[in-house]
């Protein structure tokens, strides 16, 4: 009775299940297989045979996990994963323990790097025996036919959903063959197909799934993302290279790559030389699961008494005036501005990303910036760089960067010269 209330929507529709017999290429259900079926096993590859030796029969979850683990010893690739699935499919014509196997396979997918591959999901769904779980009359339909298998099917779809994999028509055909037209997995499929396309391209700042492998390209991508200015120019201040010097020591040069827009250059040119500019960082930026760090060259906000309002150049636009000084009050209903105080923040002059976050590396950036912004030579530059993980790292493999820990604020003596500026202690 209880289930009737839970699933009142599953109504008896015979017509749908009848259509399916067209697909019926699999052995028909309900046949009484003799023991011969079990004796003449299809040719199993070595994984299957090994598992045979270990613990008779592949019915428990442990054996399936083992199957994957044994395959993982060779290599963790899509081909290996597919081979394991093939071995399972060929082992037993009745696919005994396929639910457990599918759960094990879903768990192992990220390990094999196939969690975003629709073909692999379809292959996993293909493990289910076809036709068997399709309800054949209204009573079966009403009482949640083969709940464990349906649950497992929903689970496969949910993992697809969690990894953002869009099902395709093959998935649908498989699900219809396995569970029938109005089953829970089909419902889940329909929900995915309804919502995924709506949300797929929503992000106004899209990040590709495959980020550039080269850290310099990645830095270039992230800098142009955060700069939010199409005019901004990315400049490479130092090429990365590794070389072996004559003494046999390895000399590495970290890359320094920065971005500056013409507006920022103009701002910096107008900056009061008596006020220092600050190099701040590292700030984090997340691109999907990758975290990158950037540094900012900025100044403190001007005190209110020193602010001057720049008159707008009337020649910027010849067609209509950019400033109108009419003494008219706006009605409340026409006021579209928000009644909040501006947040006082200093202007940002440039941004950069570097392989290392120490002061010597960032000083290269500043000296590089001096070529386009000569005023920087006359302004004091203060490094407010926090030590910390200053290398590009992905969330999957967190590295600690203890090397930078030791030099949070090096003595300004050696940094003085290339900068021609005094570095102040905070």
């Amino acid at each position: 009775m209880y289930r009737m209330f839970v699933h009142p929507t599953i109504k008896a529709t015979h017509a749908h299940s009848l259509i399916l017999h067209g697909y019926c290429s699999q052995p028909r259900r309900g046949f009484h297989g003799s023991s011969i079926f079990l004796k003449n096993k299809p040719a199993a590859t070595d994984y299957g045979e090994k598992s045979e030796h270990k613990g008779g029969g592949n019915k428990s979850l442990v054996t399936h996990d083992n199957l994957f683990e044994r395959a993982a010893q060779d290599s963790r690739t899509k081909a290996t994963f597919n081979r394991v699935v093939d071995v399972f499919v060929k082992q037993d014509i009745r696919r005994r323990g396929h639910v457990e196997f599918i759960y094990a396979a879903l768990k192992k997918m990220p390990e094999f790097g196939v969690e975003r591959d629709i073909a692999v999901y379809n292959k996993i769904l293909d493990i289910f025996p076809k036709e068997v779980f399709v309800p054949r009359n209204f009573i079966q339909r009403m009482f949640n036919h083969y709940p464990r298998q349906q649950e497992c099917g929903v689970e496969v779809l949910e993992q697809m959903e969690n990894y953002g994999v869009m099902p395709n028509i093959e998935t649908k055909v498989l699900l219809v063959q396995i569970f029938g037209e109005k089953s829970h997995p089909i419902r889940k499929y329909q929900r995915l197909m309804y919502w995924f396309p709506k949300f797929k391209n929503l992000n106004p700042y899209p990040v590709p799934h495959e980020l550039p492998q080269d850290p310099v390209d990645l830095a270039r991508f992230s800098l142009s993302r955060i700069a939010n200015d199409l005019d901004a120019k990315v400049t490479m201040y130092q090429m990365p290279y590794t070389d072996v010097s004559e003494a046999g020591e390895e000399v590495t040069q970290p890359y320094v790559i920065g971005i500056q827009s013409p507006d920022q250059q103009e701002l910096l040119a107008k900056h009061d030389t008596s006020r220092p500019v600050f190099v701040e960082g590292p700030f984090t930026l997340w691109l999907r699961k990758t975290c990158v760090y950037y540094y900012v060259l900025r100044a403190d906000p001007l005190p209110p008494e020193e602010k001057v309002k720049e008159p707008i150049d009337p020649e910027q636009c010849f067609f209509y005036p950019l400033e109108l000084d009419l003494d008219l009050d706006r009605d409340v209903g026409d006021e579209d501005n928000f009644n909040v105080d501006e947040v006082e923040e200093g202007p940002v002059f440039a941004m950069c990303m570097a392989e290392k976050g120490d002061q010597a590396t960032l000083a290269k950036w500043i000296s590089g910036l001096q070529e386009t912004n000569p005023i920087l030579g006359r302004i004091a530059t203060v490094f407010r760089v926090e030590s910390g993980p200053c290398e590009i790292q992905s969330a999957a493999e967190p590295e600690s960067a203890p090397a930078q820990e030791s030099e949070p604020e090096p003595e300004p003596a050696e940094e003085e010269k290339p900068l021609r500026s005094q570095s102040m202690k905070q």
Partner: protein
Amino acid sequence: MALTPMKQLATLQRGRFLTLSPTLGPVVCGSRVNFMGEYRRPGQPRDNTPPWKKIQFSFAKGVQGIRKHFGLLKDEAFKHMAGPQGQPLKEYVLEQTQVLWEFRGPESLSQWIVSSDREIGGQSEAYLKLGRNNTTCLLYGTLCSTPPRDGETRYSGYCTLRSKQPLLSFDRKQHHDWSRFNTLFLRIRGDGRPWMVNIGTETYFYHQSDDMYNYFLYTRGGPYWQDVKIPFSKFFLSSRGRIQDDQHPLWLDKVNTIGFTLGDKADGPFQLEIDFIAVCNDRAHTEEFAYEVYKRNPEV
């Protein structure tokens, strides 16, 4: 007895502030299954203390309560005399924008609740503080999506900031009435992670108490502020972290809470800086609801 799929899926996620993960698309599920009571962690014994034992009498507390509530009542009465919601009538009728929360001092943080998956046994941390010049609200912490090892919970890793339910005197509920506006306006600065905006409204039936209206909030990252306008028509209905088949436009006359959730499964530090939260009337936006309401999805 084997659980039905829907039922089991529902048992898997039972946190109060469940997440929809914006990057990967929210969890899609149809039926609205509700369980009685608060969230109880798997394995935790039931709290069987009788309700009268939880009452703590204290004279000082009583006096404090009376002062607070009668003070509120007085404010309410005077506000009512000034006009609807304490504004002059002309302003109330004509205004096109309204700033709801601006973070301009330590007391502005007291209207917010921070929570993370700590309460379901996870390891994420979230903190709220004022930004550098005490003029913004900075939500920061670390996200960790390792699920708790209790054998039942499968997903974890969320951090949430939620506004408190506004209360009138004698703890009566007060609702935000945003029906004159059609767009949510935020000025934020994030670190590139996608967030989710959740709006909780007053509901009539008990089984709707977990209903929330959600939409995504994408951040650009970088040192610049970002103005985000989200039309209320885009918000979709979800319950306990699952998008519902029967969608319904958000009714703006009784909004209880607004929240921001992070759950993008990228482990590591995060931060979100909010300058202010406002509503405005975008006259160019005429859409009433972005999703189909004339037919159920999937059709039965």
